[in-house]
């Protein structure tokens, strides 16, 4: 139906594309480093990656009024870009090698974190907007509330699901922070930086 919000095609797929691009690009860079025998570079990418992710939290701090400066909308763009890029570097740094569990847990927490973040970015904000637009259009066409509810049933369902998912973004961030910190502390504690 032309009037449907078509959340799946317009929002879910871009969300997945962004996530898949992260994974594929990480694999490509990792593969390239293997090919050029430059694995040592990958080992150090964890540091800039972590710094980028830390930098991306400016938006989170601004949103919670812990800092007063900065334009929230612009900070949100930076939050999205820096967190995605930082995650990419950390993912390359992690590679596809299973060594220590702690590092792996941190990586998985980070990926879930990115996923929940992208949920917010792609699904929630825009789907709310599209749902509202569709509702307005249908009302203008003179549909009854019952018909509206019927037509928008699946879209509403999707919307509620992603709303629930977004709620966990902050707790996941906390979990990721603790795991990443534990991994970083372990590295500082045991590695000789040679």
């Amino acid at each position, binding site marked *: 139906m032309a009037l449907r919000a078509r959340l799946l095609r317009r929002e879910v797929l871009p969300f997945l594309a962004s996530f898949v691009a992260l994974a594929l690009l990480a694999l490509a860079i990792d593969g390239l480093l293997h090919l050029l025998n430059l694995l040592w570079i990958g080992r150090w990418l964890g540091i800039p990656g972590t710094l980028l992710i830390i930098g991306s939290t400016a938006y989170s701090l601004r949103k919670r009024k812990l800092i007063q400066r900065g334009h929230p909308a612009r900070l949100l763009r930076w939050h999205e870009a820096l967190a995605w890029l930082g995650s990419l570097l950390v993912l390359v740094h992690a590679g596809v*090698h299973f*060594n*220590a*569990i702690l590092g792996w847990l941190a990586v998985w927490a980070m990926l879930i974190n990115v996923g929940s973040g992208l949920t917010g970015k792609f699904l929630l904000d825009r789907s709310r907007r599209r749902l509202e637009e569709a509702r307005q259009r249908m009302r203008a066409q003179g549909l009854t509330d019952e018909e509206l509810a019927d037509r928008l049933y699946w879209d509403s369902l999707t919307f509620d699901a992603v709303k629930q998912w977004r709620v966990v973004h902050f707790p996941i961030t*906390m*979990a990721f922070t*603790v795991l990443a910190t534990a*991994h970083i502390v372990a590295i500082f504690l045991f590695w*000789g930086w040679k």
Partner: protein
Amino acid sequence: MKKKRPVLWIVIGLNLVVLVALAFVYPHLMVSPGALVKGHAELTTDCFACHAAWRGASSDQCIECHAVADVGLRTTKGVVIAKGTLTGTGTATGTVKGSFHQELIEQDCMACHSDHQGPKLTQRSRRPFSHVLLKEAIRGQCSSCHASPKDTVHRDLKLECGQCHGSRAWKPAHFEHALLDKPVLERCESCHNGPKDRLHRQVRGRCGTCHQTQAWKPATFDHDKYFVLDRDHQAPCETCHVNSDFSRYTCYNCHEHSQAKIRTEHAEEGIRNFENCMECHRDPGVEPGKEGGRDRKGRRGDD
């Protein structure tokens, strides 16, 4: 107004506390980059046996158990290690003599050793053994770690390997024949197999007659210097060199040159000393006394 979820936070918090606790209880699973080598299996959960907090693994920690003076000679329990050697091809028989660990220019265990096996992350930082790490004095004494091969080439040598071999690889070697004793030098077949082609099958002399030690080719022997093998003299070597004795020759194995005929021919000219044909007949295409031949003066009569 945001909803607080104390239960969610408590569950997440507890999970994290458990994870951090696990990192202390099972550090080999939680933070280790890979399993330890077999000899250090008992240290699996004791990270600080090798790692100094915030400074990483250090040689000082290794030396606490592995005294440099004992490496390769005694185990950490004091048991003497049988002295094996490396063969010339680098195959270890037993353990390498302990001398090289004591003779390294720097005592940096981490430069060569990484105890965490498996991940390339730790392996790639390892430096392969290099003879450059040895002190200058010991570097030339290959026999302190290596046993030389016992084949015919090496059996009688009393030289350091470095005369012919590099320290990076046993082959290629740069052999110098001048280093051999004269009797050995003359017996090429004691080390080399001669070619089996038609020409060489007939030859039973010394290779040195035609070949040099620097290279087999080009062969240095020039038959024309002694006798020109023209169209009429394309005969098997055996025809002139009986029993493949190339130090002698005869012209009488050919129907053209019977002893009686030759004697008659030379008597007519008054030549009685005609045993060494080559003295006058070096080139069958040139008459002796003519250009390219040899003067017969002084050969007439008895001399």
